[in-house]
């Protein structure tokens, strides 16, 4: 079994560990960028509508645009994240596309106040300093050192908060930390076919015990992956490696050989497993 640095124990009330995998910083950044694109796209549409509605009086149109960007962006930013994360999926559209969702760290239900807290802090740790940064950036050249210092302070603030997830084990944002939530990756999987099945009329392969002792569970599961992928070149490479290691002299089609070896190895390891004997990989004792 492989251990991901981001895999966490998560025991349900039935006592079963579901092994959650936390979202990577990159995945979360992509989700945020998608969400921002949606929010600002909506604002842009509203702006165009306002301009269109006030086509006759130019001043009113400009004022409407100004109000939309000031209040609209503020309310939409807070409302968008909160409303979507309170929904059934616990995820904004950006998070859905990157297969992420927000869950409570203690495994309980994701409460309203937790969602509110993590999104109120998003505003503080990210959007407000960023707005200050950009609004003052334009005035740096012309004026005194005060503006420059403020811009610098805003930049440092954004940097500290934005980099925060990189510097803790659980990739928590400050908002996650205080709201008691974390973001997990929850991909949907389709169930594949069993790979050990043999076609009718395939040649029989007989392996000795020594030949089956060559590998352990780790190699078995890598072989499973290769068989699922059905990529001819890797089949060939793997098949050669196995033939060499177990000293296989009989011939046979590559795919049939691998399927037969997989089935035999799997049966043997699974039977041993039932007797409490497990073998992690080829380096451990048979």
């Amino acid at each position, binding site marked *: 079994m492989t251990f991901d640095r981001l895999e966490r124990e998560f025991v*349900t009330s*039935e006592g*079963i560990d*579901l092994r*959650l995998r936390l979202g990577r910083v990159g995945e979360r950044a992509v989700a945020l960028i998608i969400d921002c694109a949606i929010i600002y796209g909506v604002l842009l549409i509203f702006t165009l509508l306002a301009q269109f509605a006030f086509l006759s009086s130019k*001043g009113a149109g400009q*004022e*409407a645009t*100004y*109000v939309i960007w*000031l*209040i609209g962006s*503020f309310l939409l930013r807070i409302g968008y994240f909160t*409303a979507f994360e*309170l929904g*059934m999926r616990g995820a904004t559209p950006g998070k859905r596309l990157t297969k992420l*969702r927000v*869950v409570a760290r203690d*495994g*309980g*239900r*994701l409460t*309203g*106040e*937790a969602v*509110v*807290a993590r999104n*109120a802090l998003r*505003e*503080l740790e990210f959007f407000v300093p960023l707005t200050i940064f950009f609004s003052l950036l334009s005035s740096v050249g012309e004026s005194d050192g005060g503006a420059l210092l403020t811009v610098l302070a805003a930049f440092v603030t954004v940097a500290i908060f934005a980099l925060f997830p990189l510097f803790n084990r659980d990739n928590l944002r400050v908002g996650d*930390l*205080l*709201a*008691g939530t974390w973001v997990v990756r*929850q991909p*949907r*999987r389709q*169930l*594949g076919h*069993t790979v*050990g099945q*043999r076609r009718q009329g395939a040649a*029989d392969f*007989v*392996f*000795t*015990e020594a030949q*089956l002792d060559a590998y352990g*569970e780790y190699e*078995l*599961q890598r072989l*499973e992956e290769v068989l*699922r992928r059905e990529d001819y070149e890797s089949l060939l490479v793997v098949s050669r490696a196995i033939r060499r290691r177990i000293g296989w002299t009989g011939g046979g089609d590559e795919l049939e050989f691998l399927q*037969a070896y997989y*089935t*035999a190895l*799997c049966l043997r*390891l*699974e039977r041993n*497993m039932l007797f409490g004997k497990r073998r992690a990989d080829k380096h451990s004792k048979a």
Partner: protein
Amino acid sequence: MSGIDIAPGLHVNSHRFREARGPDWDRLETLLDRVEAGRAGSLSDEDLFELPVLYRATLSSLSVARETSLDADLVAYLESLSTRAYFLLYGVHSPLWRRALAFLADELPAAVRGMWRETLVSLAITVAGAVAAYMLVRSDPSWFFGIVPSNMIGGRDPSASVATLTEALHHKLAADDHLSAFAAELFVNNASVALFAFALGFAFAVPTVLLLIYNGCMLGAMLAVFIPKGLGWEFAAWLSIHGTTEMFAIILAGAAGMRIGIATAFPGRQARLASAVSAGRSAAFVMLGVVGMLVIAGLLEGLGRQLVDNSLSRALIGGAALLFWLVYYYLKPANSRKARKLE
């Protein structure tokens, strides 16, 4: 040593297992798809009874598969399916509008009520700041320029004449005044101040206290300009139309910040982080109310103050707003279980 032949028909464990349990997993997946697509209402009673049963069956499949099968694909599929079902079954909550209603009716007042000590301290700090600034400016008017930022003075300084000050309070409406833009600006400005008062609470509430003192100082300094000129009542009325709501909101934001600061500095029996988390949650509720109050304050300030040009009406509107908030937060009977739990 004899060879091991694989008889046709002899399958690895996972194959038999998939055949026996597969239909249950498919069924669970279909039900989950329907609920997640927002069609929970289309589930029959039978489906609803079946859902938890199928979930437990899948969980049991998962633990059996982990112990008896080496099929990595199967285990990964079952893990993903069980996780999805877990969050759906244990994370269910009522629809958004009902939660919003519960929030307004019970949870927000309860959260504010639960913070009454911090609110009183926050109020006391603001008043102390106001009194101190008032005395300072009265004893030496040059203090005024040290307290109030230059862009906010607009001619309203200690040397201004009574006429200028009256003019500033009864600013006549010009045709090209952008009222809604002005209101929007004020709202964003105040909201940022309130959010910072809250967020800075994590630094053991020290910046929050400073921000509250400063807010009080500005008030005191302004009062010190108007009261000696005999314009105290006019100024109070001018300020109160939105000020009662706005000051209340900022005091509450300060209280929320303090609650978190205290929880971080003195976690008691809890771990420091756990203590900050529990304080952060109730404080976040208060902050949502604060943002709502600031929207109202922005509207009152941008529209009401410019349109209502009579000190008595201004004071009445301001007083009514204050009364409303006090009744809503502190006197409205709290009835639900939720509200009690929060306190």
